[in-house]
């Protein structure tokens, strides 16, 4: 899992990867995709929508259940991974890579400090 050392995690299983000064990419963790099983559908916000930390920004559905996605940080949506519309299984295949969900402009990069690092997140799921 060393390739995920640059990720920060919410307890609700979303990850954030900071890019540059005030942008970040968001997805769900490998642990989360594995728990969900086969992912069949992902509903994401539109470019330009605003995320508020802790609020639901979308839904991920698997054969087993539908789960709300919660914003790990606040910001404006700059891009969404449109490939997930036709290929939601990318989240299963590479949750922290090709299965990314959103790119956002951070309102406040300090919010990242409230999130868990890789080892704390892994420990929380033991």
């Amino acid at each position: 899992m060393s390739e995920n050392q640059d990720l920060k995690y919410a307890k609700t299983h979303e990850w954030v990867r900071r890019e540059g000064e005030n942008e970040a990419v968001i997805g769900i963790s490998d642990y989360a995709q594995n728990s969900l099983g086969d992912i069949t559908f992902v509903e994401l916000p539109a470019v330009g929508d605003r995320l508020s930390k802790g609020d639901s920004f979308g839904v991920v559905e698997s054969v087993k259940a539908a789960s709300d996605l919660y914003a790990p940080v606040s910001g404006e949506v700059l891009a969404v991974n449109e490939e997930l519309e036709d290929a939601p299984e990318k989240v299963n295949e590479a949750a922290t890579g090709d299965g990314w969900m959103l790119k956002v402009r951070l309102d406040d990069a300090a919010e990242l400090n409230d999130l868990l690092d890789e080892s704390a997140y892994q420990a929380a799921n033991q």
Partner: protein
Amino acid sequence: MAERKQESDIPGGGLKTTPLNAFHREQGARMVDFAGWDMPVQYTGILEEHRAVRESAGLFDVSHMGEFTVAGPGAAGFLDSVLTNDISKISEGRAQYNLMCRPDGGVVDDLIVYRTGPEAFLLCVNASNATKDFAWLEGHVGDHDCSLRDDSSRYGLLALQGPAAETILKPLTRAVLDHLPSFGLEESSVAGWDVIISRTGYTGEPGFELFTPWNNTEPLARALCEAGADHGPRLAGLGARDSLRLEAGFPLYGHELSEEITPIQAGLGWAVKVKKKTDFIGRDALRREKESGPARRVVFFRTGNRRILRQGTPLLAAGREAGQVLSGTLSPMLNEAIGSALIESAAAEAGELSAELRGKSFPLQLVKPPFYTSAHQKT
């Protein structure tokens, strides 16, 4: 992310285990509590296991199912008095789908009845209902001259399903599978283990169900896996079992059937023989409903997209609620969400149903099951 379901890592909390529990864990299964049993929901993935059953073969542990033995001169008469189908029509070595109903027509359980001898029957019932079913049977046996025995812990049960099932089983048994019809059974052996082989299943594919003494189940499963090394079978869990049965249009108790849903409403009138010689529990109610037509019925639908509609989701017709979803899954073969619902008959006939999901309306297409027909299934 929230709403993830609880999974168990350790058998415990009073969960019952099948003889394959250690085997499932060794094979990397994800275990869940199903009706009080610690069962594999999947090994590698539900969709993958589903496709393997459609394309080659899958092996399911269904040892949690209940088995009862009913034997004696009065066995057939007794079963005819508590079951809806015509037991007198089953000859030795044949099986029949049945429903056990309450006086009001609500379903106690659905089951397969196997005639294992002139006066002997094996009943295979849902795990979730086994205790209730046995009590129901004991409560109604009365003066019928037969014995009733709960053999659930004596039999393990494996389902070998898929177009390659016969190729896998054939070299392991002296049973002449070519002569075994659909819903036929034969007491034989497989890989040296005593087995009742029946050509039945719950997937819509050709295949077999293998009843074997409890302690034979694990070596039998290993023998089947080794035999099929180059062409399956893949181990398949309860997740794939559910999506396969729904794609095939088969009911599942607790969804398409319940104490509140009658077999007539569920479209299973073909298994309710109101004209058979023996009077049976629920007969009057079911005959009336058959004659007048049910006020509500179970329908099957396609969604046209990949949004799975979950059990309990309300469905709308002409702007008002006309029923609720009973089952929903993604059909791996159609790559589309499918499901079943209980709706008012008038709405079922008009056919204009829609679902509302988080503020958006989705039209549903009603279809006559199966959603997917196996190219291999014998009729």
